[in-house]
């Protein structure tokens, strides 16, 4: 049979009609739409049973109690425990998404060595044992050539800290260094003999004079703002914020005193001048007369000139500060020079805030069996006290993020062949030396101990329980120091697993019978005495609870030396040359400088501009207009130390002629443009801004 074109066409015509009379087109249309609703490459949430587990946050020493909502065993969201005495249900924006940290793409899975030579940097994965051998060799080398081995601890007071101290004591030139709140360390050093661990008692203070401390944003407990607003409405607390930028704290404080960048010390000395002149001081230091002559160059008129504020501001602040007791002056150690810290701390001494409830208080030491064991502990020293270029090996515990030392300072203290050994879940680039990084578990993966708050009247202790299993090959701080000790032949370190050592500490605390205990599962706080056994204490702390020491009773403090406040440094405004601005390096997330954050943080940065993301420079609108810059344009920042590109943001709240520069999470870039003080703190630096 001959099939012609027309017959084929008829067949096709019939088929076309036929197919319309079947479910094929309609079902295909429907199912393909359903396919787009369930694309196989779009992840689906895992189904499972829902439960809540209680624990404590390890991101900073605020030790917030939190509730993890879990599906199966997987934490899917975090929220605060509302009855918790430390955080009253509040979490900070880092904490609220901290359960993502373990999935961070930059997570370190194996120990590695990172070559420090510029250009030759590359990371070599190695076995832990192999790494220990190399580090031990360097330590032995240091001991042999009487170079220093330093161990840096961002969270002192932990059981691990005490083991670190034992390790340092076991070496001929071992030093144990804390990177705690350095303003309080300075205050401690102004006493003839150290009074003990110091802390700001902010909750009980009637007036807080803050020098740029982000009190209402991210410093200390995230419950601060709510507490302050409550007390403010009751007339029980005032905050005066002395700061160049209109920060979140400046915006909410009772008063914002905008001073020129880098003039905090001058402003504090101006207040001291008024206090002395008007006889507003309480605590007479034996060298007070000497101090008065020292600061004679800082009358309000001169200080007003330096800081760019009215004299009345200085006088009023001085009067309020001394009249509204208990008051406290606070300053952030990581962003200011030591001179500024000392000048501000002198204010606390002058009006008698030290050792007083609502001022600067002395914390009691938390009982520690390790501290009492036969193994000797090295005393605490500061990195300042160590000569430059003398540290052969520096060990840093970064397993819990926390205050970290500026890289400039670390670099200055290391010898030419110095190595840095870091225990951390992530790699922090430190291109100035050979670095060994040992992977540690992150939040929610391991048992961690949390001690001490620098913003509370008494110290506390919490535990963070492992809610999820840690990946293989992770090392916790206690294992780290024990293994390193045995590799380097340091034998005087207490043995025992992390859990055993922590349980021993519970027994020691329990036997002291002091302080109170918060039980997260029922929201009750009770006397420690009411517990029946150390195991009960352990169980309560293991489930988001918290032990709070009883406040230290006021005792007589040793005498102080106000003259240790130095005015030798150029504490005055650096007038920028014409067509130059003053570059103010800003650290949005200074505590987390050496840590990673959840990738979801893009929501408040990259995706909404709430917090600066990428490299941004903020200028007063008028300043920007004068320079011919528009919002969003790209500029080159040029200082004597280098140059970099940034995006301009015009902001009417900015002080004229100041360029506030933010760089991405890791601050290296902006810091590299700034001139540094002796103590490695950054100076406001003249900068030229040119459109690119």
């Amino acid at each position: 049979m001959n099939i012609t074109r027309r017959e084929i066409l008829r067949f096709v015509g019939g088929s076309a009609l036929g197919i319309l009379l079947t479910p094929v087109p309609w079902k295909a249309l429907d199912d393909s739409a359903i396919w787009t609703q369930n694309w196989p490459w779009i992840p689906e949430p895992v189904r499972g049973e829902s439960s809540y587990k209680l624990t404590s946050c390890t991101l900073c020493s605020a030790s917030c109690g939190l509730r993890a909502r879990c599906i199966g065993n997987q934490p899917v969201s975090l929220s605060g425990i509302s009855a918790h005495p430390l955080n009253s249900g509040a979490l900070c924006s880092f904490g609220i998404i901290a359960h993502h940290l373990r999935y961070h793409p930059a997570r370190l899975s194996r120990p590695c060595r990172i070559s420090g030579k510029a250009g030759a940097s590359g990371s070599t994965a190695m076995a832990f044992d192999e790494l220990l051998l190399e580090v031990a060799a360097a330590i032995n080398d240091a001991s042999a050539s009487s170079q220093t081995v330093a161990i840096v601890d961002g969270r002192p007071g932990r059981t691990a800290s005490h083991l670190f101290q034992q390790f340092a004591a076991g070496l001929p030139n071992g030093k144990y260094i804390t990177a705690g709140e350095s303003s309080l360390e300075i205050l401690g050093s102004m006493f003839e003999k150290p009074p003990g661990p110091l802390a700001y008692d902010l909750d009980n203070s009637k007036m807080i004079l803050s020098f740029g401390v982000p009190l209402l944003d991210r410093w200390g407990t995230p419950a601060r703002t709510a507490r302050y607003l409550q007390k403010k409405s009751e007339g029980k607390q005032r905050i005066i914020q002395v700061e160049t930028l209109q920060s979140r704290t400046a915006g909410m404080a009772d008063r914002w005193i905008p001073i020129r960048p880098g003039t905090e010390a001058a402003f504090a000395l101006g207040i001291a001048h008024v206090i002395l002149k008007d006889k507003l001081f309480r605590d007479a230091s034996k060298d007070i007369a000497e101090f008065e002559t020292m600061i004679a160059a800082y009358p309000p008129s001169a200080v007003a000139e330096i800081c760019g504020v009215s004299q009345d501001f200085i006088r009023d602040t001085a009067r309020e500060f001394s009249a509204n007791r208990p008051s406290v002056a606070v300053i952030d150690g990581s962003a200011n020079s030591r001179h500024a810290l000392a000048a501000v701390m002198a204010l606390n001494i002058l009006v008698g805030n030290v050792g007083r409830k609502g001022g600067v208080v002395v914390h009691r030491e938390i009982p520690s069996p390790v501290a009492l064991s036969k193994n000797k502990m090295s005393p605490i020293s500061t990195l300042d006290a160590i000569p430059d270029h003398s540290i052969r090996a520096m060990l840093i515990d970064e397993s819990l993020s926390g205050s970290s030392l500026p890289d400039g300072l670390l670099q200055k203290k290391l010898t030419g062949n110095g190595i840095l050994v870091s225990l951390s879940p992530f790699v922090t680039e430190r291109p100035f030396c050979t670095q060994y990084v040992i992977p540690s578990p992150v939040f929610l993966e391991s048992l961690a101990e949390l001690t001490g708050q620098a913003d509370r009247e008494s110290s506390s202790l919490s535990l963070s329980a492992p809610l999820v299993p840690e990946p293989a090959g992770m090392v916790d701080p206690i294992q780290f120091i024990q293994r390193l000790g045995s590799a380097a032949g340091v034998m005087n370190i207490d043995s025992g697993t992390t859990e055993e050592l922590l349980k021993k500490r519970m027994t020691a605390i329990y036997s002291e019978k002091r302080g109170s205990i918060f039980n997260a599962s029922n929201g009750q706080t009770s006397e420690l005495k009411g517990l029946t056994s150390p195991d009960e204490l352990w169980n309560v702390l293991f489930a988001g609870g918290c032990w709070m020491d009883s406040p230290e009773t006021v005792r007589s403090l040793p005498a102080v030396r106000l003259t240790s406040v130095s005015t030798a440094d150029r504490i005055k405004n650096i007038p920028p040359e014409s067509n130059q601005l003053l570059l103010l390096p800003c650290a949005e997330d200074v505590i987390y400088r050496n840590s990673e954050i959840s990738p979801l943080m893009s929501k408040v940065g990259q995706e909404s501009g709430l917090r600066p993301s990428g490299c941004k420079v903020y200028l007063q609108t008028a300043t920007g207009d004068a320079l011919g810059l528009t919002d969003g344009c790209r500029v080159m920042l040029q200082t004597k130390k280098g140059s970099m590109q940034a995006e301009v943001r015009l902001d009417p709240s900015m002080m004229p002629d100041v360029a506030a520069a933010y760089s991405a999470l890791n601050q290296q870039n902006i810091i590299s443009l700034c001139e540094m003080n002796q103590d490695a703190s950054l100076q406001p630096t003249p900068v030229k801004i040119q459109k690119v």
Partner: protein
Amino acid sequence: MESNEKKPRYGMVIDLDRCNGCGNCTLACAVENNVPPAHENANERTGITWMRVQKVDNNRPYPENRSVYFPLTCQQCDHHTPCESVCPQKAVEYDTETGIVAQIPVRCLGCRYCMTACPYHARYFNWWDPEWPKGMETALNPDVSTRMRGVVEKCNFCHGRLQAARAKAAVEGRRAIADAEYIPACAESCPTKAIYFGNLADAGSEVSRLAKEKNSFRLLEQLGTEPKVYFRSEQSWVHEQMNAKLKTAEKEKIHG
């Protein structure tokens, strides 16, 4: 089925004087609602934040400059809901049971007409397929579905939490839920307690009381869309800036 008692009208009052702009609401919202981290090319105009905090200042130069932070989310318009009437295929719906404006991404064809209709910019388009770093997709909330590229999404007052609260009530044999059983993630996570959430139809609720206060206002009130998100501030410049009609106490009886 429903009893005679009035149906709830969920709403919010946000105290601007209490907001310190920390961004917890944005983050808690993203966690609760499975919003993925930013695509590397995303920016402030292509990212997804159901709840977004915006700094607003008084336009005065330093040092008289003052600012507040506005947590902005879907304003859940109660009347002439601008986005609802424009959707060609009913992917947007005013939920008569709760007053919540629903967005159903699986129905959405991604025409984005609703986004041009919304004066509050509360609607977000998925310009990319969602992606989570490896492993992070195991930490998603099963009460909320994930979305795909090419659809619009927005805040629904954490409706998954309302469903969970209702399920809990149902298993106990209750048809109604108590106020405290349902609170969106943003309000729960706010460390300064700036966000009040509750039933505006219940004259005795705290949100009703606060919404009627003279310091409370809504954005673009004159459009007549009756948003169920109120803001309050004691700073007069905020009111001037927002061009807000300050209400007298007797004038307005909300959602009566």
